[in-house]
């Protein structure tokens, strides 16, 4: 090392002066420049959760979460902790990374309320909440707080303004904890928060993720949704993000979630919730700041809805379509198109045609949105949406929420999901950059490895190659990318897709490729293709593949890997390609049936399964799409 420094000194001294920032910007276009050139492509998936709440979130605390930031990180990295209700908890396998995303509004409020901080107890509302929580009515208080919050009716005296001391110190505590547990190469802890925008109960939530450390993140407090210092309008969030980057030189991105609870306003086609038309600014800003969408989580799966995809036999997966977030307004069919990821990807093509930019050009991940400080998504180890629904014999039968719109039962909680990232190393920078370039996929809790490449000349030989990823990267683009320009002689794009099941999980049933496109009349379409499947099954005359079977032993909450395959791989060519039409393609990998978490609960506690609860689930992975843009 010493000799090297000495020897290289003269050479170093002769280097040209460092280029100015502008000339660099041309070299590194966009936030994440190609990681493949000269530094190897990602060879590993890193598993994480971008969306975990701790007791710092006001509603989580109200629901009885007593575990703070420390426990959240300790649990995620594999330590055993004791849950808020006294149940010992440990992950079957640690996560590689975690972002705690507590609600920015009223961050830190609940620990203070619980501690009986003088400034809160001197207010009658604070006093009332405090007393009732102490008397064991925490869940009622939580519902009241969430109800008030969803409707924007929280009393001013119960809001931590972003310029107040308690808020600032809560943000500092969040940053400090991430710094403490961030261990590059082993476990990555991201600084982040959730911007919890609600428009009369309609969900426009986003989590905000930092690539940066404390030095930059500390310079501005997290953005909130209540005026005058915050705003519920995504345009204002993007402005805040832009200001943050200008001021600190840092990098942030936002990930929206639960369009299924937005009552149609998450992915607008023509106008925003406030009546303002989508314009060039909206579409470019959204595309710039929101490279990923959280497609599956505890409050329902968001890939698609059976109403939108009637031909898709796997569409009705863990659907939550009672109403908006607080079920104050019931769902109507007309809302659904503005809520689900697949439809949004389609709308994006239509909007791009009109305004020049596709605002919904996002990659897909899953995350938990757990409010227990415990990032659990595996069916046999599910700690519930919040501490009121931690494991216990009666948790399944409780009504989760009852309003005029109907009742949602606690068994309907979804044990989902996880974020899978193809990154070169386990660091903030590497994982953030992978999310920014959309080389990511989401699963409903299983850890299957999935590769998906698009190009013009993949052949069967590429998949038989011992290093298929080599040809994947050299002959095409990975998930999240745009197909390269169509060569003159190419007729149709080819896709190489392969998947390996979770090493301790269930076998795979099939891989599907889902295509969405925009026709010449400006109408969008979708089609699901089965491209690889286990066993000797043959599609019937309608092209429908026979089911893989079911080995789930409901009584004993068990299954066997005697059906399905541990690996599936294929090269697929689009049989219906039209070079004039904008299109996207993503892969969906489906496992064989396995017991749902409710089935495990029934077995372990010796209780009856609720009547309507499905006994088995079909875990799946959704990859980020690959887009085709005519002429480019």
């Amino acid at each position, binding site marked *: 090392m010493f000799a090297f420094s000495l020897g290289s000194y003269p050479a170093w001294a002769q280097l040209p002066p460092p280029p100015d920032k502008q000339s660099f910007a041309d070299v590194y276009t966009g936030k994440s420049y190609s990681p493949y050139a000269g530094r190897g492509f990602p*060879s*590993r998936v890193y*598993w994480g959760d971008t969306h975990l709440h701790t007791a710092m979130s006001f509603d989580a605390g109200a629901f009885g979460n007593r575990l703070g930031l420390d426990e959240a990180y300790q649990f995620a990295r*594999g330590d055993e902790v004791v849950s808020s209700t006294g149940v010992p908890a440990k992950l079957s*396998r*640690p996560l*590689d990374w975690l972002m705690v995303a507590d609600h920015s509004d009223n961050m830190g409020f609940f620990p203070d309320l619980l*501690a*009986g901080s003088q*400034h809160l107890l*001197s*207010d009658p509302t604070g006093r009332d909440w405090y*007393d009732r929580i*102490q*008397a064991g009515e925490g869940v009622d208080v939580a519902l009241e707080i969430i109800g008030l919050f969803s409707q924007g009716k929280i009393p*001013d*005296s119960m809001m931590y303004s972003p310029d107040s001391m308690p808020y600032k110190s809560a943000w500092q505590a969040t940053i400090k904890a991430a710094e*403490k547990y961030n261990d590059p190469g*082993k476990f990555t802890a991201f600084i982040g928060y959730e911007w919890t925008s609600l428009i009369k109960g309609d969900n426009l939530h986003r989590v905000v993720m930092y690539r940066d450390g404390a030095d930059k993140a500390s310079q501005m407090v997290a953005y909130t949704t209540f005026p005058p210092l915050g705003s519920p309008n995504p345009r204002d969030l993007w402005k805040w993000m832009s200001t943050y980057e200008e001021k600190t030189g840092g990098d942030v991105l936002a990930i929206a979630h639960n369009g299924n609870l937005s009552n149609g306003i998450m992915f607008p086609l023509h106008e925003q919730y406030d009546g303002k038309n989508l314009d060039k600014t909206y579409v470019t800003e959204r595309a710039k700041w929101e490279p990923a969408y959280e497609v599956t989580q505890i409050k329902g799966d968001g890939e698609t809805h059976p109403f939108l995809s009637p031909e898709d036999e796997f569409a009705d997966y863990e659907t939550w379509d009672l109403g908006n977030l607080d079920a104050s307004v019931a769902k109507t069919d007309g809302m659904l198109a503005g809520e689900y990821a697949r439809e949004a990807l389609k709308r994006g093509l239509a909007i791009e045609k009109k305004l020049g930019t596709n605002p919904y050009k996002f990659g897909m991940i899953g995350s938990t949105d757990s409010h227990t400080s415990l990032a659990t998504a595996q069916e046999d180890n599910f700690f519930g949406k919040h501490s009121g629904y931690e494991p216990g014999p009666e948790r399944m039968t409780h009504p989760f929420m009852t309003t005029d719109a109907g009742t949602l039962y606690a068994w309907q909680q979804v044990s989902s999901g996880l974020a899978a990232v193809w990154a070169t190393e386990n660091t903030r920078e590497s994982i953030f950059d992978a999310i920014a370039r959309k080389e990511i996929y989401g699963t409903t809790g299983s*850890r299957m*490895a999935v*590769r998906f490449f698009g190009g013009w000349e993949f052949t069967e030989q590429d998949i*038989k*190659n*011992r*290093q*298929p*990823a080599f040809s994947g990267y050299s002959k095409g683009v990975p998930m999240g990318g745009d197909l390269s320009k169509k060569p003159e002689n190419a007729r149709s794009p080819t896709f190489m897709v*392969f998947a*390996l*099941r*979770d*090493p*301790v*999980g269930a076998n795979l049933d099939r891989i599907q490729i889902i295509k969405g496109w925009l026709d010449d009349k400006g109408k969008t379409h979708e089609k699901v293709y089965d491209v690889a499947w286990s066993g000797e099954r043959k599609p019937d005359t309608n092209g429908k593949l026979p089911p893989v079977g079911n080995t789930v032993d409901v009584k004993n909450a068990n299954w066997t890997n005697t059906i399905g*395959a*541990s*690996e599936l791989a294929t090269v697929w060519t689009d049989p219906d390609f039209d070079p004039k039409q904008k299109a996207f393609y993503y892969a969906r990998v489906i496992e064989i049936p396995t017991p749902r978490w409710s089935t495990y609960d029934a077995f372990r506690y010796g209780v009856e399964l609720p009547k309507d609860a499905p006994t088995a689930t079909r875990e799946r992975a959704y990859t980020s799409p690959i887009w085709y843009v005519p002429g480019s």
Partner: protein
Amino acid sequence: MKRWLQEPLLHFLLIGAALFALFYQVADPETVSDNRIVISEQDIDRMITLFERKLQRLPTEQELNGLVEAHIREEVLYREALAMGLDQDDTIVRRRMAQKVEFMFNDLVDAAEPTDEELQQYLDGNPDKFIESARTSFIHVYLSADERGDKVMTDAQQLLVALNSKQNPIDSDTAGDPFMFGYTFDAQSDHQISGMFGSDFATSLATLAAGSWQGPVASGYGLHLVYINDRTEPWRPLLSEIRDSVLYEVLAERRQLANSAFYKTLLERYDVIVEQPLMQQSLVETELTQ
């Protein structure tokens, strides 16, 4: 500053003494029997400050009167409640008062930054907490159970012989079936290996000798023949490499020790009688050793 001046325990005792002094002053028989309620200027100032902090403006005269009235009302009812003994059996009141004492001493411990010697001492005393897990570098040849079915074990055994053959070894780069995560793994921790192959595989791997082809080892996917290039046993990093982690642990431990020490001094002032002899003994002992 002398070390003992920084002792949290001393702070607690001083605060305790001050509280007692205050208590005797307040509990003076003359004041207690007094039915006067005095709202001092300081009280009013405090109300104004609180109001201002909440609403970002000064209260109007009417609002101020309202605040004072509410305060008087609360005081009257509070004294009546005390006189009726309503504070005695109320869980909320009891818990709240206990918490107040806890919060008073909870944050007093952060005072002194531990020295490097103290950190080193802690690291030496708790090696297991900071141990770096073993690292294994290996290559493998994969045999897919899906592809080979019943033949997978015999195929693996034949291949193992061929790989280890002195005369005519076959090339591991072309042997076996394709594997999605690749074939060469450098300095992987047990956790990383488990993440890709499952924990049974990681456990088996740890028992294999380095320097020749070994196995077959089963994973969730099939069988693997493994050549371990190198294995580093678990090791203890130097303080300089993990200073922050040690510091966090030391501070956390100090906080906990100080809290239980404080509780211990309080507990010593009481004769605790649990009318079940064995339990009493163990309860007190547990508290004292914590």
